[in-house]
């Protein structure tokens, strides 16, 4: 419960603040256009790092399963969720 409260207070606002205003399928940086999947991968990486940090803080990380499976899965999950939330339509 405390974990979810903290997650809501920290990770979600960061993600929303960055992406909620940038739902266009491309990110324009000084005339260069970046595709959505690159944004999703980078955002997914950051989100998974924050989530993993929270899991470590909650001392749940050692019990999640093999890190080689869990860490890439968390990254992929975050990437796909961000894509589904902001870029699927």
């Amino acid at each position: 419960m405390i974990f979810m409260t903290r997650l809501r207070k920290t990770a979600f606002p960061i993600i929303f603040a960055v992406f909620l205003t940038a739902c266009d399928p491309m990110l324009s940086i000084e005339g260069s256009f970046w595709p959505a999947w690159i944004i999703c991968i980078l955002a997914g990486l950051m989100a998974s790092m924050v989530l993993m940090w929270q899991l470590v803080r909650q001392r749940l990380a050692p019990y999640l399963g093999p890190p080689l499976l869990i860490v890439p899965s968390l990254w992929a999950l975050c990437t796909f969720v961000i894509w589904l939330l902001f870029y699927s339509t």
Partner: protein
Amino acid sequence: MENNDHFVNLKHRMKLGRIIGTLIVLGALVTGTLVWRINYQHPRTNDAMVRANIVGIAPQVSGRIVELHVEDNQYVKQGDLLYMIDPRPYQAKLAQARAELLVAEKEVDSRRASSGSAELAIERLEHQRAAAEAEVNRIEAEDEYLHSYLEQLKPLAEKQYVTADQLKQARSKYAASRAELADARAKELSARSAIEEAKSDSRRAVSLIAQVGNVNARIEAARAVVAAAELDVEYCSVLAPFDAYVTNLNTREGEYARIGTQMFALVDDRHWYAIANFKETYLQSIKPGQEAEVFLVGYPGKRYQGVVTGIGWANYPDNTKQQGVLPEVQRTLNWVILASRFPVRIEIHERDPEHPLRMGMTAFVTVLDRPADIPGVFPASEKGAGKAQIPQ
């Protein structure tokens, strides 16, 4: 007691950790499948651009531009005067052609009159020939009489019933009649040949009129020259063929416009398209008539509705080349082959004066798996019979 609590807490954490770990892996698989499915059902590409039909404006007559009514990037309506070429030489040619038409008409009238007199001459010669024929008949009758008279005198002369002088006179009259007959026949022949000659002259006169049925070729040719000259005068005023934007206009009055040389271009404002180059692997999910969403990077937050009007039928793969008459086949060991891309034409129906479309804008296109519900826009037929149209 404390150890027992710690143990319970650890057990609880292990259980929660296992659940979260499983959810993470399952969630990654499920969301990944969902993403793949959405991507396949709604193909999208950023290899797209806005384009319109471009028509180069070239004069159909040569000459100096005396009036230029448009500026670069100006909007023009169908029928607006774009520029005018000095019409005076063409007006003079038109006046000359009209005069030549009059001359042709008079010439034809004169030839018709000559043909009429030739007909009269034939009639006159026919009468002469008839007279000559009658003369021949008369002389033949007289000749026959003289011949029989001479034949009657001959036995009488032998018996001395008639004098030798009478016989000689009869012979002489008969000989004179024979000569007169030969002369009359010659005159008749002469009359016949004169008729033939007059008929030939008449035919020549008729062919010179050049009348075929109700059409006179000479007058029609002169009229065609007048029509061409009128067209040339008309071509001096170059009008906008449709609603469009003037583009790449870099000249002014005084420029010598050459026939067929494009001076600037018009961007057709009636139809705007997004040409999206989709990988061949997505073509199965794209059909003409489907709705598409076009996002232009120049207008963040703005999305245009479009409809797929067709998919390119031909592509020129870069591995097919030709050296002379032989195909140039490269030695290659490509294990990874990139998908070909085919241009998909999407008509953008929506117009927004705040966000005008410009050809060449970078677009991001998503084809949706539902038919477009845009009235008046019809996809091109896959069989090539139809054409995308917006009612004007």
